[in-house]
């Protein structure tokens, strides 16, 4: 699993599996920049199914809003994404 520092460019994995995940569909496959590292939190994909959650780094990732909706737009969006949903971009 990759570690990312603030400023790193990351891509949200484009997969769309069924089940409980906390990665919004509209961000999958999109590229953003790590705004800050929030430290480890238990994996919600395990907690949801009554398992112990393995610790995972959580990142706040900033995206240009225009990139998300394929338009010119200077506004931005941030979301929290767990490490296992990110890959280097």
């Amino acid at each position, binding site marked *: 699993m990759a570690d990312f520092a603030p400023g790193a460019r990351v891509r949200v994995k484009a997969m769309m599996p069924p089940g409980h995940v*906390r*990665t*919004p569909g*509209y961000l999958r496959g999109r590229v953003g920049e790590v705004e800050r590292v*929030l430290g480890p*939190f238990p994996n*919600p994909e395990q907690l949801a199914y009554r398992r112990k959650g393995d610790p995972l780094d*959580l990142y*706040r990732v900033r995206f240009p*809003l225009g990139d*998300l*909706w394929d338009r010119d737009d*200077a*506004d*931005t*969006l*941030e*979301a*929290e*994404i*767990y490490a296992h949903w990110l890959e280097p971009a």
Partner: protein
Amino acid sequence: MPHDHHDHLSPSGHPYRPDQDGPLTYWQAMEIAIRELMVEKGIVTAAQVREQIDAMDARSPAQGAAFVARFWTDPAFRDLALRDGSNACAEMGFEVGPMRLIALENTSRLHNVVVCTLCSCYPRNLLGLPPDWYKSRAYRSRTVREPRKVLAEFGTILPEGVELRVHDSTADMRYIVVPRRPDGTDGWQPDRLAKLVTRDSMIGVAEALPATEAPA
């Protein structure tokens, strides 16, 4: 606890609604049944349920407003709030809650707004329970795609030169927006300033009230 206060807000800042007098619904019967079973099985006590509701009723946007007013007037508190919002809550004597708080400061060039597209995450420890519209399909769907239009529907028109930043509350953080301090409030004490800080301004769909609209 029947209410008849249609034009008033409850202490929690929500309008009153009729309560126990309507016909019993299936889901209400299920709530009673589950509560009784949980008590009988020794998981909770009736007193704990009452205490939890009392704590819920004690949480309201007034706490968030006090947080914002102190942020505006106390530079050391502002630094703490930006570095560690949860610690800042503790410093105010508010419960910290299970989630970590991040304070988002609006400036002349940046305006923040908060949404939860996947469910309805909300900074309950500072603002109480969320308003219905925050949980609505319209708000959850559109705020990440056309946030300026959504703000306009709340009467908030952002100038072109101001960056709008949308925060999708997807995981373990909770967010409170610190609106810009209104002009003409120099020298105001925090208690007076707090009256200008509305719930909607701390979600980011509105600005704080102007000084001229301070409630008595």
